[in-house]
């Protein structure tokens, strides 16, 4: 059970934060189809930055002396850098769709094509192979919080909650959850959030009240890019052992589905991403999931093909969308370039 919850969280958290990224863009009126591309880009920048840090002796000595608090600081710094570059990359989308009134679907698709191409081009040049990994060590030994890092003896039992939420976890997971809560409050309880949402519903009305629609849309898309970039690195760190290969296995698109399923509302999105995280977790590690702790790996023993488990998240997404589509309500003005002269 502990394993199941931890694995589910690992898949659910990047989905959740990237789905929120989608919400910020779409609530401001821009369809951000580029989430996948920005994630790929953020993951690459994060891993590359880790590699750069690992060439410095100061950082290496932190690791050797076992200064785990400082290493967590490093992790946060890398997340910040990934977010910054995700935001920068998303400016390509905002510029095209806000200033040049481009087709947002094509613009987003262009970014989705560009990110893996750029990333793979540089990975080949940097590492002379198709995957960029950490220079030394792995994600678990550098950034994972374990009993041993906290100075607790390995044999101590921390109880169910301790074992699940303190042992073998990443700080990034909790930072993302915290950010998710803060940003949801920002979107719903502040003046900025209200204005942002107004631009996605009725930009003409918002403009007539003195809100700068262009600025608000830039803000929405940039926050979106930052979150997606960070989400991309968190995905690479927690599920791919801090490696980047120009691919995030369709997570950006799954996040879009989560966002639509969650009806563009943070609370629903949190629930939806947990559900998808669970299915992703089953697909990835169904053979080693022991639900009730009796040593029987039930899912593996039913004899269903691994291929079916891998298909499940996508089939479920389609089915769920089919059943919820009637009640779903997208922001009214999303995807429509804002034109001041239009009535």
């Amino acid at each position, binding site marked *: 059970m502990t394993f199941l919850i931890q694995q589910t969280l690992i898949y659910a958290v990047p989905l959740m934060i990237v789905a929120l990224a989608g919400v910020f863009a779409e609530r401001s009126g821009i369809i951000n189809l580029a989430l996948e591309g920005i994630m790929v880009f953020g993951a690459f920048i994060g891993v590359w930055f880790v590699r750069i840090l690992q060439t410095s002796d100061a950082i290496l000595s932190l690791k050797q002396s076992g200064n785990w608090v400082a290493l967590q600081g490093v992790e946060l710094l890398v997340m910040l850098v990934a977010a910054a570059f995700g935001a*920068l990359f998303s*400016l390509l989308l905002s510029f095209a769709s806000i200033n040049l009134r481009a087709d947002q679907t094509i*613009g987003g698709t262009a970014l989705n094509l560009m990110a893996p191409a750029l990333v793979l*081009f540089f990975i080949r040049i940097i590492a002379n192979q198709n995957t960029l990994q950490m220079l030394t060590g792995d994600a678990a030994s550098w950034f994972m919080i374990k009993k041993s890092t906290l100075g607790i003896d390995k044999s101590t039992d921390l109880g169910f909650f301790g074992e699940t939420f303190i042992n073998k976890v990443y700080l990034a997971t909790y930072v993302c959850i915290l950010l998710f809560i803060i940003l949801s409050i920002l979107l719903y309880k502040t003046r900025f959030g209200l204005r942002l949402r107004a631009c996605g519903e009725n930009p003409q009305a918002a403009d007539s009240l003195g809100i700068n629609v262009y600025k608000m849309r830039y803000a929405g898309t940039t926050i979106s890019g930052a979150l997606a970039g960070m989400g991309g690195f968190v995905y690479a760190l927690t599920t791919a052992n801090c490696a980047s290969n120009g691919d995030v296995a369709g997570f950006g698109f799954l996040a879009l*589905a989560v966002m639509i399923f969650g009806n563009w509302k943070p609370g629903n999105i949190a629930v939806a991403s947990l559900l998808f995280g669970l299915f992703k977790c089953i697909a990835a590690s169904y053979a080693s999931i022991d639900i009730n702790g009796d040593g029987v790996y039930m899912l593996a023993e039913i004899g269903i093909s691994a291929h079916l488990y891998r298909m499940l998240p996508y089939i479920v997404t*389609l089915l769920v969308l089919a059943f919820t589509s009637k009640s779903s309500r997208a922001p009214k003005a999303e995807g429509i370039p804002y034109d001041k002269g239009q009535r």
Partner: protein
Amino acid sequence: MKKEGLLQSEGFKSVAASVLSILIGLAVGSIVIIIVGLTSPNLSLSAAWDGIRIVFGGLFSTGRDAAGTLTWGFNSTNIGNMLFRAAPLIMTGLSVGMAYKTGLFNIGAPGQYLIGTLVSLSIALGLPSETMSTTLIWILAFVGGTLAGALWGVIPGMFKAFLNINEVLACIMTNWIAANLVTWLFDISNFKNVAESTKTGYIYKTTYNGVATAKMGLDKLFPGSQVNGGIIIAVVFAIGVYVMMSKTTFGYQLKACGSNRHAARYAGIADKRNIVISMAIAGGLSAAGASLYYLSGNTEFFWSTYQSLPAIGFNGIPVAMLASCNPIGIIFTSLFMSMLDISGLQLTNLTAYNEYITNVIIAVIVYLSAFSLVIKMWIGKLGKKKDDGADANAEPVPAAPAPASAQAETEKGGDAK
């Protein structure tokens, strides 16, 4: 006076916008090559110069001579291979372009392509070639694959038409379902290549069963290449789609649904049915592309594909966008795209750079085509301002700096770190 008319004509503006996008894309690619050449310790400026020359003229590259300098000339292998690779691209391009004209963004081409691969290969390898004519098997495999792709395209079409679910999302989900399904079915099939022990994870070539696309004499024209009649079939399809979309009532109905679904229904057009049909045609076209590629007899399919989607499917998007979704234009943009592909391979073989730079160029071109309307507007304004000027082809260039510099700046921002 006459030239002003030319600059204002819609067709000219479309072509000019596409040419401009291509030039800017190539320029951005060159800039990236130069930056990498200057900053990377193991690359020199002359290596960067070689890289740029190959990006532009890889088609006519014949390798390096004994002294290590690049040599150029007519390369029948390269040109034949370009034609061979263009055939499936034309089909996926038609698929995306045709759907786009009917208001649907068919990002599901990779999935439809995979399903086409599955069914075509299964028929081509499964039917007994001892008792049946191989030509008949080829035709059955081609038609079967195409129909299967059409059925696969119907799924997102139904979701869009009856449940109003964004076709982009439905297509993406069906893509991944297709990738897993194809892997699964090939995994339990007996088409996996076990005859050649060096090849693991591949399906037999169709020549194993004696099935291959007719060469139609093209192999005489371009000796040493993989070219076959597929390119001719693809061109025929392109012309067919053009006629269907522009010259028939049926095509007009599809387009009417695309521009305004509700108005079309008001005019008595069955909008739901048309959405499903246009996704079915799009799916069929993509799958036909897969059939052309894998029935050729000299290509092998890597069956464990559940983690990746075929690039040819996605490349249908840039091909279609660059041609403004015009079926005839798609023939030329596919040729251009497969030329870039060849250049990419030459780049990997002959220099320290790799083929992904051509994907960057393609992405930049798609990005620019997203606001091709704005570019067209600039070109139109340019024509009004200047009464007489130099060569008409050179005219659009002055409008370039705005997007080019913005693009390059952000690109540099990404590189600097």
